[in-house]
């Protein structure tokens, strides 16, 4: 306690220099918490959105299906296992049939993925009920990004060309009966959603699908020729991508932290050089050299406590804003390639705050201790005269 008290007095007595260091360090505190908070928020949102829009409670993939290889689409189009027939009727399993096609918006040619889904499905947030609309053309729904890219709007009619299971080209008009906004690019970019039975009929693939989406109420069962992919497995890549982006982002706060640490290191080094008499006097008054080292280390470490207090004062309203209002990015979600909302909300967990505080405390203590080590080698009689270094 006495150590903290004497160190605190010395620190406060240093005046403006102390407050400048405290301010810079408080920026590091706030920056780390906000940036990590945004990334945690992004990670949470990406996972939740992917689950709501794309994954549900996991998916069965036909064993040959590879989402990154369009050549597997044909070979992975197989009959839906009989074991799921009742579940499909009860919407506990939603089959998705995937094939390739070409659309001709305004005479331009654009490759698309055609995905067939039951219009009355209840597992994903995609507004597929629009697919129940009776039209002369084939009804389709698409994401807002896709619509904007292809310059399409609701009720537009355009030509779709595809190949059936025999490899024969077919073409028909489609009508856009719904445009939805989503943060999940896999649902939106280059994708048209059609009624499952229509797509099965169009491609001569009656009763076929490539993937089966599972409801949380349905137990995982082992089915020959189908691999079950859990939610964790399916969001793994997204989370990895967020993590990769977080490494790039961390460069900013590492720079801030380095600046703060450099300022503290410089201040400590200069302080020990200039305050030799003080050090000698402390020893003469009854402190051991180890105690003086601890005093100076504590003095440096107290920057972190002051920065925490100061950072809380100006950072708390910012944290509140980031958590409640979020930050709006000018980048389109799909341009980023991973689920990302227009507005990103920070998730500031107690773990993040405690972790950041501990991390900065440890780094500050180490940076304060390094110059203070010199004191242990000082001759007190020389230090009293200011000639020990």
């Amino acid at each position, binding site marked *: 306690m006495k150590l903290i008290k004497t160190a605190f007095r010395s620190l406060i007595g240093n005046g403006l220099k102390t407050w400048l260091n405290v301010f810079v360090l408080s920026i590091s505190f706030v920056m780390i918490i906000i940036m990590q908070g945004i990334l945690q928020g992004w990670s949470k949102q990406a996972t939740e959105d992917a689950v709501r829009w794309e994954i549900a409670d996991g998916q069965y993939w036909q064993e040959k299906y590879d989402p990154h290889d369009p050549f597997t689409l044909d070979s992975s189009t197989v009959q839906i296992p009989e074991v799921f027939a009742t579940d499909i009727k009860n919407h506990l399993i939603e089959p998705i049939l995937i094939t390739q096609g070409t659309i001709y918006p305004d005479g331009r040619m654009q490759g698309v993925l055609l995905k067939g889904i039951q219009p009355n499905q209840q597992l994903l947030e995609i507004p597929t009920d629009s697919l129940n609309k009776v039209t002369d053309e084939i009804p389709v729904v698409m994401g807002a990004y896709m619509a904007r890219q292809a310059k399409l709007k609701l009720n537009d009619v355009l030509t779709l060309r595809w190949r059936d299971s025999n490899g024969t080209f077919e073409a028909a008009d489609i009508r856009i009966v719904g445009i939805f906004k989503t943060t999940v690019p896999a649902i939106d970019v280059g994708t048209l959603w059609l009624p499952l039975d229509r797509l099965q009929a169009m491609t001569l693939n009656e009763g076929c699908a490539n993937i089966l989406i599972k409801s949380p109420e349905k137990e995982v069962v082992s089915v020959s020729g189908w691999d079950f992919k859990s939610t964790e497995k399916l969001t793994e890549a997204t989370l990895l991508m967020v993590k990769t982006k977080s490494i790039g982002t961390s460069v900013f706060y590492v720079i801030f932290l380095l600046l703060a640490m450099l300022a503290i290191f410089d201040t400590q080094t200069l302080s020990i050089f200039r305050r030799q008499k003080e050090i000698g006097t402390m020893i003469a008054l009854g*402190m051991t050299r180890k105690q003086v080292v601890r005093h100076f280390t504590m003095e440096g470490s107290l920057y972190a406590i002051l920065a925490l207090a100061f950072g809380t004062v100006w950072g708390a309203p910012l944290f509140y804003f980031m958590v409640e209002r979020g930050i709006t990015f000018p980048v389109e979600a799909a341009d980023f390639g991973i689920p990302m909302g227009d507005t990103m909300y920070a998730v500031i967990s107690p773990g993040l705050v405690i972790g950041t505080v501990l991390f900065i405390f440890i780094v500050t203590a180490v940076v304060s201790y390094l110059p203070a080590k010199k004191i242990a080698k000082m001759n007190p009689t020389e230090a009293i005269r200011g000639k020990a270094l």
Partner: protein
Amino acid sequence: MKTIVDVKNLTKNFPVGTGFFTALKDVSLQFAEGEFAGLVGPSGSGKTTLLNIIGSLDVPSDGEVVVLQRSVGKLTPKEAAKLRKEELGFIFQSYNLLPVYTVFENVEFPLLLLNMTAEERKERVMETLKWVGLTDKVKSRPAQLSGGECQRVAIARAMVKRPSLVLADEPTANLDSKNSHNILQTMLKLNEELKTSFVFATHDEKVISYLKRIIRLEDGKVVADELIAEPSK
């Protein structure tokens, strides 16, 4: 009279280049309780070195120095710090006040090391500042004080823990004549009223005129030891 410092055949060498310089040669002395004594001699005579060894800030190269029944050369750094913390007070030529602390905090510092309660500390500090006449400067910082006032703060800091022995190294060297006399009168008063022993290292005639015992050093040796008055009882 109880002996509080016993210096026996003390020699102190300092390494210089490949050899060494002998600052004290076979010095033997005793200081009794309540002394107001001075180590007098020119620069380089070994006054400060002797004072530092008595103050357990340095150790003998040879011989023995026993301070309050503790042999300085045999103390661990922790024991030496304890001796200084509990029994010794220091007054330096350039005051050596902690610049960022107020007068009150400077005087309070040794009591913080003794783990006294805040109430006890306050009482002790104010009483000590009263002795040196600085109760109106408690919130001032050293930079706001005159040299004489700084030295009085240093005296208060040395006296606040009621040490058995105060070691003063050239305490008047940076003071004018009037302030020097004020300081010396204050210390003499404390010596007489509190029976605290004072040992000075000085070559200032003003200080010498107040001493009750003068020990003259030359080239690291005691050349004269003159008792002018009996120590305070």
